[in-house]
């Protein structure tokens, strides 16, 4: 059996309304029940990866929706797939597997569309403890969404309507008679697994199952029986009676995120999450889904509590902060150079978003301090690690420890760096070695070790490398530093190209003049100790006068991860230089000749 199958499941059949439903159970039946409902064109096997991860903690139940997988199809098909009948099926399964306690629902795609119906009709009240919705809106909410935009068509609303209208092309296709069935039982059914791998990047591991052509042919009636009726006359009372966690894949080609804009109107207790992935997240991001579902189910079991990584602080609210919390809550983030400056600010920013933070620095005390404070401002968990990024063996040890104890890193921030100023001829080979070891080799080790773990897991991630405005702004005062940072910039660009196919984004951040203590610890080549001290002080003073706070760079880093940007100049002067490097490189070269006022 491949991993497309549900391994070790106890199977049984539940008879209801003229069909037999194939129900699979995993895990200890005494624990809270998590009921997974699949979408279209799928069978319960779409959940195999997520179910295996959840089975350690819960009683996991999956079933084939009528007409799919090993469940039988209603006869006749027309009128056999209405949401009312699907609700009957759900209640029959829930009563069979968890007669005494309400169940935690999880739905993907059409499974989520159904589950919205379950969660919003009156007769299921008390049978549902929580609902996690993935990529499937309520048809009633959708109907109201369309109506609202049609009755008051502002340009933005028309744009949203047209956008979603274009994404719903397959819905129109499925309403044609006979042709979809012929296609699914013929060429489309054969090509579908390959299409999924190519377009959706779903790993080819035994999924989809061989029942796909008949699943897809029967499932067309899901659309024909419900979509037109519900969109024309959406129920006015479709309010959820259970807490809902909405997980929105940002790269979904079938559903636009704006569909959920007014969801708070229907759901009193809503937790939002976003994940950078395409539509088939149960196959492509099982770790992330399992961890969010686990957290949500646990919080729903203890009434009155909110998911630990979705807490909102009384201070610092805002749309951006919300977006960060939705995306980074519970994710594992590793930041190097986290004992001060940009690294520390970045660790704090991720902590405020509810991430789990590993703060790495060669100053172990400072890293521990960062971790301690991160834990106080909202990090789900935080650890400090003392490691010199330029030490290959130490980095290997760290990577092994992090993977074993904390898990696979979701966001890696290679930030550790040192400053070196002085003319080329004053820079000794030792100076060169030192600056390249930290600024370049530190990044290489980080990308090599943690990037390999990310790629090996195959569930996406993001790498941020801190380059510098000096990466594209030459200067006669910074030959070694600028060289190391230019290398980091190019490394990031190459890596971005290489990892694009695996859902891993790579960003190079170019901060510019930021008020951190890199100036106070920078080496000035070719001058004596006293002069070096004086220049450090003078440089610190100038950067202090510029006073661009590292917190703003941290915000730029989070935003870059959120929007998957390639190169991010941060300060106005860094942006200006970036623009000039493209359009007037000669002017930059002229600036490069200026002696800095130190």
């Amino acid at each position: 059996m491949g991993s497309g199958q549900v391994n070790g499941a106890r199977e049984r059949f539940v008879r209801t309304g003229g069909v037999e439903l194939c129900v699979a159970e995993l895990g200890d039946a005494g624990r809270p029940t998590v009921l997974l409902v699949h979408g279209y064109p799928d069978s319960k096997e779409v959940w195999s990866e997520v179910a295996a991860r959840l089975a350690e903690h819960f009683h996991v139940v999956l079933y084939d929706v009528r007409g799919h997988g090993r469940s039988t199809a209603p006869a006749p098909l027309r009128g056999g797939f209405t949401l009312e009948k699907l609700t009957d099926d759900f209640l029959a399964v829930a009563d069979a597997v968890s007669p005494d306690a309400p169940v935690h629902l999880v739905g993907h795609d059409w499974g989520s569309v159904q589950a919205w119906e379950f969660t919003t009709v009156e007769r299921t009240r008390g049978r549902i403890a929580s609902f996690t919705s993935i990529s499937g809106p309520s048809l009633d909410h959708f109907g109201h969404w369309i109506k609202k935009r049609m009755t008051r068509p502002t340009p933005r609303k028309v744009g949203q309507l047209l956008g979603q209208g274009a994404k719903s092309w397959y819905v129109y296709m499925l309403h044609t008679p006979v042709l979809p069935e012929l296609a699914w039982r013929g060429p489309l059914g054969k090509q579908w697994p390959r299409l999924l791998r190519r377009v959706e990047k779903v790993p080819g591991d035994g999924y989809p199952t061989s029942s796909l052509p008949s699943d897809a042919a029967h499932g067309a009636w899901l659309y024909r029986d419900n979509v037109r009726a519900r969109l024309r006359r959406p129920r006015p009372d479709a309010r959820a009676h259970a807490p809902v966690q909405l997980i929105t894949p940002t790269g979904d080609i079938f559903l636009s995120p704006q569909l959920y804009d007014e969801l708070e109107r229907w759901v009193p207790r809503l937790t939002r999450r976003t994940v950078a992935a395409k539509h088939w997240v149960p196959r492509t991001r099982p770790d992330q889904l399992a961890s969010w579902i686990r957290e949500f189910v646990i919080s729903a079991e203890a009434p009155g509590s909110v998911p630990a990584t979705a807490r909102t602080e009384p201070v610092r609210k805002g749309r951006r902060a919300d977006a960060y919390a939705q995306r980074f809550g519970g994710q594992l983030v590793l930041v190097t150079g986290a004992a001060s400056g940009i690294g520390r600010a970045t660790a704090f920013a991720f902590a405020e978003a509810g991430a789990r933070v590993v703060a790495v620095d060669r100053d172990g005390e400072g890293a521990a301090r960062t971790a301690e404070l991160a834990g106080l401002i909202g990090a789900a968990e935080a650890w400090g690690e003392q490691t010199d990024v330029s030490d290959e063996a130490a980095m290997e040890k760290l990577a092994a420890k992090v993977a074993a104890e904390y898990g696979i890193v979701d966001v890696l921030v290679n930030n550790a760096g040192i400053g070196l100023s002085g003319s080329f001829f004053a820079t000794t080979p030792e100076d060169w070695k030192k600056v390249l070891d930290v600024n370049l080799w530190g990044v290489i080790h980080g990308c090599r070790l943690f990037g390999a773990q990310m790629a090996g897991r195959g569930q996406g991630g993001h790498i941020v490398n801190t380059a510098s405005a000096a990466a594209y702004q030459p200067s006669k005062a910074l030959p070694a530093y600028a060289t190391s940072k230019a290398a980091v910039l190019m490394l990031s660009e190459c890596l971005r190209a290489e990892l694009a196919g695996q859902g891993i984004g790579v960003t190079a951040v170019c901060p510019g003049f930021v008020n951190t203590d890199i100036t106070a610890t920078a080496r000035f080549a070719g001058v004596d100790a006293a002069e070096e001290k004086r220049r450090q002080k003078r440089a610190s003073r100038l950067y202090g006068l510029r006073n661009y706070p590292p917190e703003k760079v941290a915000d730029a880093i989070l935003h870059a991860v959120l929007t998957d940007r390639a190169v991010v100049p941060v300060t106005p002067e860094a942006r200006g230089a970036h623009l000039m490097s493209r359009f007037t490189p000669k002017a930059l070269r002229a600036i490069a000749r200026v002696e800095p006022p130190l």
Partner: protein
Amino acid sequence: MSSGVGVDARLRGFRQVQALAYECAEAVAAQLTPGVTEREAARMQRVWLRERGVRDWFHLPFAWFGDRTAFVGFKVPLQFFPTNRVLEEGMPYILDMAPVFNGHTADIGYSGCLGPNPLHDKLLDDLEAHRELILAEVRERRPLREIYEDVERLMQRQGYANRHRAYPFGVIAHKVDRVKERRFNPTVFGFGTQSLKGLASDALHGHRDGWSPLWSPYRFSDHPPQPGLWAVEPHLGFRGRARSSRSCWW
């Protein structure tokens, strides 16, 4: 540090007014509930102190709630004045008052939090290190400007931002002295004129002798500690939350 007749009595006077100020802070803090505004909190302090015989101020009482405790986005001094910001559950607050009582001045900052907050406790703990550092370095008679820089470095190492830099002249402390008691005590921009007069006269004398009653990061503070009573307030800021404390010594 300074000797002379009546030092004990004067010190007692300062201690008395400082104790009164802390008593006021605790009394007002106990009355803070969700929904109270900064203006109301400031008025509560003013009324409480007036009732107990305070007639003059070094500055009128201030109150800051939420991210205003860290002076987020403060560009002009007028932003220090209390606003209609409403206190919410879990919000940090600072009550800052400088009453003059029997001719003695105190200037204290009292920070708290509505409800339990481990971060607040942490900040208060870390503030203790600053108190020790400042006292130790003053006893060594290091130049005030250097002490200021050391305090800033310690804050940075602790992971905090220096928020007293937002005060006028970026001062961490200022000298306080006895103030003449008058029947009419007007204030200018929230500062008592008698105290400003004292500060101005100190500044004049100091300017001649090479010291300043304002303890700042600038060159005019590049001198050893001047004997007298100083109100010292290191102000820690951390991502939109802040704590400050004041201590005085002779």
